[in-house]
């Protein structure tokens, strides 16, 4: 919560003793200089109204949060490369565009490579004030674009890659990706049979893989914590080299949650420990967002239709306990309940 004793701040500036602290988007009692980007009436609205995302779309929200912060951090000097996926489809049905940033789309799997090319071109042209952001969903990032992404990391190309993780291929009708959590129902992992839902023990953590490349900055963030997300984007834009931010964005359609519950569900993921929020520099974890109000994993699962097969008349207590074990491991591994950690 406060500046660490070693003089390093370990998170966004938080203000104590105000009605709502900095949990809300804005706070009329705070000085403008410490207000969030999203509370600014002149924010960029990088993703404009009229986009065709579903009601309560977490990805649309996350993309605006992140790009508005990147725009402010660079004084509106960014170019964005976008992978195929929901984000691309709902924002740019020909001939409309919702983007208020220089934006280009190529293929599902090559956004990191396209971004690398843009960065190289800007370097050749001597435009060192223009920065490059690449973005995609979990499918384009952790599966299809993974080779390009790893290449971009190992070459330490000057790109911030943002993954909006809604944990499956939503655009094509909710198919499993390697970011789909254990036990979740998708159309390729139905919630029936001996082993309902996504198989336990599969999948991968791309933030940890990104850290293994030893790049300057890796962070996870969530639409449920705006201040933390903005802080991380701003920090990433202040660095050069390959940077990666992985943002948790609930999908009401694919997760079977109420559109009005998007932020609540994302918050329960953090507060249960199932989505650890942390940051790492040069491969070392340097900060984590402390759990403020610990909840059992079950509270998160129950808010979503994709885990419904675990409940009902005969709850699947075994699988619920396994998922709780995953949460417990995250809490232990990242120190999500440690004292003295920012919350």
């Amino acid at each position, binding site marked *: 919560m406060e500046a660490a004793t070693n003089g390093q701040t370990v998170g966004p500036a938080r203000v*104590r*003793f*105000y*009605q*709502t*602290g900095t*949990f*809300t*988007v*804005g*706070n*009329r*009692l705070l000085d403008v200089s410490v207000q*969030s980007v*999203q*509370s600014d*009436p002149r924010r960029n*609205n990088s*993703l*404009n*109204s*009229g*986009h*065709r*995302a579903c*009601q*309560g*779309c*977490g990805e*649309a*929200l996350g993309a*605006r949060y992140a790009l508005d912060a990147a725009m402010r951090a660079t004084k509106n000097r960014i170019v964005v490369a976008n992978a195929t996926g929901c984000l691309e489809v709902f*924002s740019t049905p*020909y*001939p*409309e*565009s*919702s983007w208020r940033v220089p934006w280009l789309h190529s293929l599902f799997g090559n956004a990191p490579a396209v971004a690398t090319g843009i960065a190289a071109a800007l370097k050749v042209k001597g435009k060192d004030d223009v920065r490059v952001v690449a973005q995609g969903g979990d499918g384009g990032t952790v599966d299809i674009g993974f080779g390009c992404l790893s290449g971009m990391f190992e070459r330490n190309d000057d790109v911030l890659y943002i993954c909006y993780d809604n944990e499956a291929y939503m655009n094509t009708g909710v198919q499993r990706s390697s970011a789909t959590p254990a036990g979740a129902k998708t159309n390729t992992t139905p919630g029936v049979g001996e082993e309902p839902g996504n198989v336990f023990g599969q999948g991968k953590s791309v933030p940890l893989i990104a850290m293994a490349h030893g790049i300057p900055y890796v962070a996870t963030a969530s639409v449920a914590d*705006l201040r933390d997300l903005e802080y991380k984007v701003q920090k990433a834009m202040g660095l050069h080299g390959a940077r990666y931010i992985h943002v948790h964005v609930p999908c*009401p359609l694919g997760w079977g949650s*109420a*559109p*009005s*519950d*998007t*932020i*609540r569900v994302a*918050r329960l993921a953090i507060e249960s420990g199932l989505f650890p929020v942390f940051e790492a520099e040069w491969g070392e974890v340097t900060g984590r967002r402390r759990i403020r*109000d610990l909840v059992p994993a079950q509270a998160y699962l129950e808010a979503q239709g994709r885990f419904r097969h675990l409940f009902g008349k005969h709850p699947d207590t075994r699988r619920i306990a396994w998922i709780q074990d995953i949460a417990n491991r995250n809490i232990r591994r990242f120190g999500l309940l440690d004292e003295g950690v920012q919350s």
Partner: protein
Amino acid sequence: MKKPFAITLDVGSSLANKTGSWRTERPMYVDRLPPCNASCPSGENIQRWLFLAEEGDYEGAWREIMVNNPLPAIMGRVCYHPCEGGCNRAQLDHPVGIHAVERFLGDEAIRRGWRVEVGSPPTGKRVLIVGAGPSGLSCAYHLARMGHGVTILEAGPMAGGMMRFAIPKYRLPREIVDAEIQRIVEMGVEIRLNQKVTDLEATRREGGYDAVFLAVGAHIAKRAYLPAGDATKILDALSLLREAERGEQVLLGRRVLIYGGGNTALDAARSAKRLGAAETIVVYRRTRERMPAHDEEVREALDEGVMFRWLTTIKGEQGGSFQVEKMALDGEGRPQPTGEFDTIEADALVLALGQDVDLSFLGSVPGLAVEDGVVRVGRDMMTGCRGVFAGGDMVPAERTVTVAVGHGKKAARNIDAFLSDTTYTAPEKHELATFDRINTWYYADAPRTMQVTLERARRESTFEEVVQGLEESNALFEARRCLSCGNCFECDNCFGVCPDNAISKLGRHNRYGINYDYCKGCGLCAAECPCGAIRMEPEST
């Protein structure tokens, strides 16, 4: 126009796509009634003045209180703050210390000399108010603001009524009372002291008043027959408090019994301590839980060493020794005699058995009805006699300063309507802002600020104020603990969480607007509103 290869349409913005047509529910900004406001007998808009106070706009906050209650510095001290009993924050940590902030604002107003201007041109109407207690003063203040001429006739030598003669100094310093009354006088209200009204009809006729508000209070002490000798001093609590107020020497002796269980009994007990009694014992026929006195007063009395004898009645006295009987509560919680007797030695007995209203001056008022010793009034505070209104302790209600102030305001509004031959209709109340509408996630943990109390030694011997006020810094902190239940406090959450940018900020204190061209009706704004100020309503088809 020459287009690039394979491009046949002009590039356009997605603003052409009005996603509002998807909507099945629409968000609407609402104001709900915060529980503090709902439980305030004076009808203060507490949430609103805390909103202003938390910005540091103390004068604005004070003026917001003054819309409904002309006595904030008094109220912040003596009101039993039912608002805090209703406060939703109690379910999170502790209720907001509303009374302490109100007191800070009231004191600030006195310190800085803030005044209230008469808002309306003179109407030429004249209203007589009988009694310069809280109810009469409140009514006078509101009538004066509406432009009416007001004369208060007060039987006593000083204005303030029971605030001066029943509430001890250590709870309410007199300079506070004087300052708040003076402010009302400066608005043009005439207060004539030592003017006991003996024949209301005659006074009304002679003065040519267009309407009358009766607020004489209840200050005749109820008596109980006790067989007693001459050796022991027996007096009633109101005389004790009145004598203490006038600074007269009250000889009580070493050990004093107080008989009764209301707030007046405790005021008398605590005053007796300060007047030199070594031991004061409150004798009450029921239990602490069933005592009408407010818990805070009981606690402060206990702190000061006042002793209690629960479930006990006094039967009689002989030679400085009181015979008492033990009581037991029956199934319905009523005390019943047990036949077990005991004696308590004491030098004086103070009776605090409640008060009656002196109604003798109302003898000839036509239509005015009296029931159970109090004057019957309608919902508009009017008695059975046209143009004669009544409020405060002399009408059926809880007898507190705050209720009296509320009566004064209500009566003033109805008198104002009466004077212009209309009827006053209160605006419709908003739906209650219940705790389940609060999104508690957004509120930072912040425990209540404690008010410093005077140390016990000084409390036992002097009439200095017991409970101290807040400093500006902690008053501000306390104000900022308000959850703003059911009323937008401009936190920008709706503006931030809308995935469709359909909400715009309209500037400071102007809240937000919704662009229904793009709002898809997802309901995120309503779900993430901390205070429950957005309602989702089904779209009409």
